């Protein structure tokens, strides 16, 4: 089908909208009074509805439509948000997400959402919470048949108001010809014409149903417009395939009449409702059981959402999808282009042709910019992974009855796409772990003198050759004794070894296979999948994970990921005839040191630096670089680098300059070369090695 070409766009955009819906709902939960947020949510939901209807995903469209009804009441101040509404809306979002997920995987986005729809409808009616879920479903069924064409209070008020202010109100009955092929399109044209000249207050069937051709041959609308009846008639009957248009001017009197009719209908409805409620009451145990089951069910939609995290983040934000292999090809082709550029520059300077030189210079600038873009294509802000966590933590905290404040910093830290795609699941696990095992219950926290709300910090930052992601909670910390006891029981360590272990070693035991310190297996963590999976995943990415904990004050899980394919800012230096790159992040400063100021302490060369004495080494010595001129000179260029608390100075022959470099591995044949963390390709096509200062400072 032709639709296919729009499908990926639809998926991307709806993922976007769902994310924004989630984010804004979270915001709204914190500021329930802020109508402007509701407006944003409403617009997002509305767009989503339109998109899905166009694409033919009717389940998706009708669920968003129900949400819209609720949101519409909220934004018009007719409904106050409360916990039930939030929960229902969040549940709807989960359901929408599952549907979109299904579409992504080639499905049709169908799902049974009758429960959620019933709940949403009951919110609109304002009778939720009284009858159980079972009753709601029936009630909504009953409701549907009776609400044929009833003006609600709001619509009534609008009509009344416009009549009072002298704006004509019309009641239109439009009949479409029987042989009309595309009823929906005709109806759409009618609505379009109407909306250009006024406002449709209410239509029967709903606009939603009409769009989906869920009507026989006729539909009717309440319409406010300045144009007179005559031209309105012309306007509508001018549209082809319209058989008949009946227009009725509505005045105050007829409006009252309508409302009275409505009341009769209302009475009938409320009687039915009453009856339903009574049956629901007799079925109370069932209803309450259903209500009790809700929290359990809640974790169910959360879980698939979490496990599909990776693929969802693939959809990305406002992006197009590009096969990563193509990017590799692009990158490699580009480096070839750079080599040619250098050759051209050489030729231009040899030929001394003004025109050629200028052209080559221009080309150099353009290719420089192009290089920047090409290199950055693979980089994605970690935000694409992080943005789902606030919602996850909210649900988690709620189901565990804890209060957790998630603080995210460094979401703009960029990581290679391949890493981004893989890191989601381990992070989900660590975060769940922190909320479940780390942060205490409200009662416990109060007892130990902490604030009710636990703080969970999620940080990402670049450091050295790595990206660090830290998950820190202010919970109860890790109980060393308990970890050891479990470890001994599970034969992970021997009792005699246990006492000699450092805290860090003990914490690392948490990552042993099948290890769990949880007293009881909870729904959140401890499903048999332990931290060992997290660790092996991170190790497979070439990273590492470490734990730091303070009993009573919280723990910190620190995930270190290599920048294998990322770009870093580096200082390029010359040593002899060779060029090396030093990651800028570990450089403290550059300076010039007089050789006579170098001291010898126990056979080690040292220099004064600020208030301390730090070791100084010539890179030429470390790497046996030929033809380094260091020895003959009186002073040397020096780079001061930092590893943790320690400083050291490297002598080099020259600083070439600062640039962004792509880190490449040396391949599988050359592994673990001391002091070298990788290589990069310079603009002239030459390879320069990247120094790993951490390995050189002991």
């Amino acid at each position: 089908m032709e639709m296919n070409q729009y499908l990926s766009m639809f998926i991307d955009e709806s993922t976007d909208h769902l994310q924004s819906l989630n984010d804004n709902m979270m915001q709204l939960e914190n500021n329930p009074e802020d109508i402007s947020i509701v407006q944003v949510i409403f617009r997002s939901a509305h767009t989503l509805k339109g998109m899905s209807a166009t694409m033919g995903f009717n389940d998706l469209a009708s669920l968003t439509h129900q949400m819209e009804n609720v949101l519409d009441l909220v934004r018009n101040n007719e409904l106050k948000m409360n916990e039930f509404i939030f929960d229902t809306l969040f549940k709807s979002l989960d359901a929408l997400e599952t549907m979109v997920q299904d579409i992504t995987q080639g499905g049709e986005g169908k799902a049974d959402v009758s429960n959620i729809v019933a709940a949403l409808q009951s919110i609109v009616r304002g009778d939720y919470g009284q009858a159980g879920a079972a009753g709601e479903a029936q009630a909504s069924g009953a409701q549907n048949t009776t609400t044929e064409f009833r003006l609600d209070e709001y619509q009534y008020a609008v009509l009344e108001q416009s009549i009072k202010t002298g704006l004509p109100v019309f009641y239109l009955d439009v009949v479409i010809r029987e042989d009309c092929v595309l009823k929906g399109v005709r109806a759409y044209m009618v609505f379009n014409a109407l909306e250009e000249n006024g406002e449709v207050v209410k239509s029967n069937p709903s606009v939603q149903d009409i769009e989906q051709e869920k009507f026989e041959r006729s539909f009717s609308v309440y319409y406010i417009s300045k144009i007179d009846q005559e031209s309105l008639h012309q306007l509508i009957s001018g549209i082809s395939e319209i058989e008949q248009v009946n227009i009725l001017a509505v005045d105050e009197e007829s409006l009252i009449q309508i409302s009275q009719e409505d009341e009769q209908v209302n009475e009938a409805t409320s009687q039915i409702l009453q009856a339903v409620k009574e049956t629901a009451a007799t079925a109370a145990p069932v209803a309450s059981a259903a209500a009790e089951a809700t929290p359990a069910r809640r974790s169910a939609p959360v879980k698939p959402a979490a496990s599909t995290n990776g693929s969802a983040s693939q959809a990305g934000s406002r992006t197009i999808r590009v096969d990563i292999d193509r990017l590799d090809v692009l990158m490699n082709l580009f480096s070839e282009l750079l080599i040619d550029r250098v050759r051209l520059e050489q030729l231009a300077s040899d030929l001394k042709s003004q025109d050629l030189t200028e052209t080559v210079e221009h080309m150099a600038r353009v290719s420089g910019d192009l290089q920047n873009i090409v290199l950055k294509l693979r980089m994605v802000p970690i935000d694409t992974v992080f943005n789902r966590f606030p919602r996850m933590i909210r649900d988690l905290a709620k189901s565990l009855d804890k209060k957790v404040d998630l603080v995210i910093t460094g979401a703009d830290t960029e990581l290679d796409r391949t890493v981004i795609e893989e890191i989601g699941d381990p992070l989900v696990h660590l975060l769940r772990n922190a909320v479940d095992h780390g942060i205490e219950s409200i009662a416990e926290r109060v007892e130990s003198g902490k604030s009710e709300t636990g703080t969970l910090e999620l940080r990402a930052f670049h450091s050295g050759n790595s990206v660090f992601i830290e998950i820190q909670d202010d919970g109860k910390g890790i109980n060393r004794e308990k970890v050891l006891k479990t470890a001994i029981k599970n034969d992970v360590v021997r009792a005699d070894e246990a006492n000699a272990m450092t805290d860090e070693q003990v914490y690392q035991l948490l990552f042993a296979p099948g290890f769990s310190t949880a007293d009881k297996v909870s729904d959140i963590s401890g499903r048999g999948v332990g931290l060992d999976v997290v660790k092996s995943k991170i190790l497979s990415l070439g990273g590492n994970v470490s734990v730091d904990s303070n009993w009573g004050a919280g723990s910190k899980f620190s995930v270190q990921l290599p920048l294998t394919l990322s770009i870093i800012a580096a200082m390029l230096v010359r040593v002899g005839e060779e060029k090396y790159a030093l990651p800028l992040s570990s450089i403290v400063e550059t300076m010039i040191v007089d050789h006579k100021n170098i001291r010898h302490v126990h056979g080690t060369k040292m220099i004064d630096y600020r208030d301390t004495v730090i070791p100084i080494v010539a890179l030429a010595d470390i790497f046996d670089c030929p033809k380094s001129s260091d020895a003959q000179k009186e002073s040397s260029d020096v780079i001061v680098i930092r590893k943790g608390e320690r400083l050291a100075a490297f002598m080099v022959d020259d600083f070439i300059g600062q640039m962004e470099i792509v880190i490449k591995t040396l391949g599988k044949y050359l592994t673990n070369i001391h002091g070298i963390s990788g290589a990069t390709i310079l603009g002239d096509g030459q390879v320069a090695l990247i120094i790993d200062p951490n390995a050189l400072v002991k």
Partner: protein
Amino acid sequence: MEEDIKVIVFALGTEEYGVEVDSVKTIERLSPITRVPKTYHFVKGVINLRGVVVPVIDLRGRFGLPETEHTEHTRIIIVNVNEMEVGFIVDTANDVIDLNTDLIESPPEVVGGIKAKYLRGVAKVGNDRLLIMLNLPEVLNKQEIIQLEDMGE
């Protein structure tokens, strides 16, 4: 066991060697090599192969032959074995021949010893041409290199 294979023929000094074309990715002219410190003596460094950093080995050095100056005939044969991509520096490389696997005989006993492991056999081609077939995984086997170096010490 009759099977025709395509073989890239290259020379080190006066001897001709062959590697199966399947494991050869490309043959390149010599490009600037960046030295990598603290590695085996025969690892000349790394080159930029269209955006990929590939280590290059001087095959003479690897086989214990005297290393010579590189000439305009010098080529780098890029092979891919066990997901390892490595370039071999060879004196010349200019022939591709079809070879029947039946023609490959086990390496002569005289060569013997540990070094012979990386020889798959010797093939007699045409009238008077002897082709030494390489066992690439063994050429790239680092365990053996370590043993060799231990013996040298």
